[in-house]
């Protein structure tokens, strides 16, 4: 017979956003690190209840956006001034005023790439397989249920005591999820 499957952690189910919020505060105060909350929509202010730091996506967007704008200028300046200078309607080679629209558009374009791909990168998506998908109840996370998952790799994790903690937060259901 095969070895018993490894345990990913515990999954607690809640019926309302309010219950999830209070439960998150308790799990946070218990000092867990490798845990997460799951909800069908972003519950307002839950990052505070979980003790999460602000996202760094804005910094990625700023860097990408300004690089896009800079590249936009370089592209136009290099092609019009350096590589193939051509007099058009008697305008100067470096007609920087006329370059503004393309600078702007490329800034926005790369900034948006930063926002979208930066966000997916930070979230490590796509991750098509995840241990939590082994739970049948977890499929309701995209409908109307709220969950807290605590991973077994957390140093504070203890199969019994962590389960008790989750049950004490008013979870409707607590189960062990296989890895």
């Amino acid at each position, binding site marked *: 017979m095969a070895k018993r499957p490894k345990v990913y952690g515990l999954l607690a189910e809640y019926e*309302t*956003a*309010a219950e999830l*919020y209070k439960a998150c*505060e308790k799990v946070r105060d218990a000092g867990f690190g490798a845990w*997460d909350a*799951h*909800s*069908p*929509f*972003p*519950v*307002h*202010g*839950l*990052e*505070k*209840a979980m003790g*999460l730091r*602000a*996202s760094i*996506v*804005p910094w990625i*967007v700023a860097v990408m956006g300004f690089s896009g704008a800079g590249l936009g200028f370089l*592209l*136009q300046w290099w*092609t*019009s001034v350096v590589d*193939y200078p051509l007099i*058009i*309607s008697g305008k100067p080679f470096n*007609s920087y005023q*006329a370059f503004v*629209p*393309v600078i*702007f*558009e*490329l800034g*926005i374009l790369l*900034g*948006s*790439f930063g*926002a*979208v791909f*930066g*966000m997916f990168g*930070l*979230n490590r*998506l*796509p*991750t*098509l397989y*995840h241990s939590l998908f082994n739970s049948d109840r*977890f499929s*309701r*996370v*995209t*409908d*109307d249920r709220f*969950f807290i998952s605590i991973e077994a790799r957390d140093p504070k994790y203890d199969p019994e005591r962590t389960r008790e903690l989750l049950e004490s937060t008013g979870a409707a259901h607590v189960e062990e999820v296989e890895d």
Partner: protein
Amino acid sequence: MSHYIPTTHEHDIDPVEGRMALIQGNPSFSEITEAVVRPIEIPHRRWWIAFMLSLSMLGVLGISLAYLLWEGVGIWGNNIPVGWGWPIVNFVFWVGIGHAGTLISAVLFLFRQKWRTSINRASEAMTIFAVICALLFPTVHVGRMWVIYWPLPIPNQMSMWPNFRSPLLWDVFAVSTYFTVSLLFWYVGLVPDIATMRDRAKTKIRRIAYGVFALGWRGSHRHWVNYEAAYLLLAAMATPLVLSVHSIVSFDFAVSQLPGWHTTIFPPYFVAGAIFSGFGMVLTLMIPIRAWFKLEHIITVKHLENMAKVILLTGSLVGYAYGMEFFIAWYSGNPYESFAFVNRAFGDYSWAYWTMMSCNVITPQLIWFKKIRRSAVALFILSIFVNIGMWFERFVIVASSLHHDFLPSSWAYFSPTLWDVATLIGSFGLFFTLFCLFLRFLPVIAIAEIKSVMPAANPHYVAPPPASKRKRHVTKSAVGVVESSDGSRDSEDSESAIGRGESSVSQSVKVVVSGAHEVKPAAADEAAPEKAADGHDEKEDADG
């Protein structure tokens, strides 16, 4: 409650915000999912009819383009001096349609207009499909469409680069950036909803298809934090982007030296017109959809009314711009400019000009009447007029300014050919085919977003007792309600009914103070009998 039946009463109050609920009937989260997803899971016969119609129109486009490729742009009515003709008219028309989608998804998001959540998904889809139609026209209008990549800065055998001083090139960058950003914005919004589709999928193909596009989304709050930051920033970037796109489209005209085009009012006037036409198209699409998909409780009359108000505002702005163009044509003292405008209103194209004026300036003024802006049928008819009017606006700008060149010897009249008409109809076929496919496979309403603006989404909201209990409770306590509300029961006008609803509903919300957060329901201080927040006020009124 297995099946949710939409109600039409307007007395549902959001217990957290203390104002009229965005979604009527106080449905639960799963009822929202059910209402939005059901039409996707079971194809409707109406959908097949609409799809087949659109597909046959798309066939017309295919034939037109094939013949165009074979024969050349001579099949159109374009001539010299009217070299731009219908293709550019259609291009500006379709780009303009797209703008409402971005306005709803980005600008209203920045202004925290929560009602946008009912309509943003479909309008963003509309934006993307409209921009696809728009991009088609310059592509085929250049004649040799196989060298359409020339405007892109790609090293080539001529070792030449595009001319970055040309507004036409700015347009290439603006519209393609607009398309890319709109697509990304739409997709980011779709990921959680595609995950919903994945988790509900009954067949393996659906599970895999939705599963791949959901990217393994699992509603993690660590993800939501980054997601919300990205979404906000996309909205913040899409807002100036959408303003820039139609400004740059207007530069195609305004930067030229042609009387009737060379005006500084063009950028704001084009943007207002774009939003005006886009909201017209949103209404044209959403009014049938909300009826066919039974979504009247999510896309309520209030949503239609709000959109109608935007149409009224932007329609009036457009009317002001028309007037101001004429004023400046006279006030500038430029004889060419004043000739162009007198010719526009009273020359060969006066029929088109007055069609435009009546559709864009006069029709939207009907929205001042509450009866009209709250009637779905009236708004649907009105939105068709807006679409027609805005197409004619672009036609008037293109044709009337071009057909009388500086030399009378080169004056000519533009008449469209059969192929002009076929290509325009075909572009509608492309648009509606794509939209039908969207309706068939993707949630037409942003499920996750709409849930997040419902009262129960607030982490400090405590739900009223369950439905079975609630009904019994209401009928039994009806007598008590009459006693305690000292005679105000007698007046049955809707205003007092709403007032009562507000005070009683707020009682059922127990405010939970936790940390720094505190939710203060409106009128919480009013003493009212214990009653459930379920919109049964009317029933009680009848009992009383």
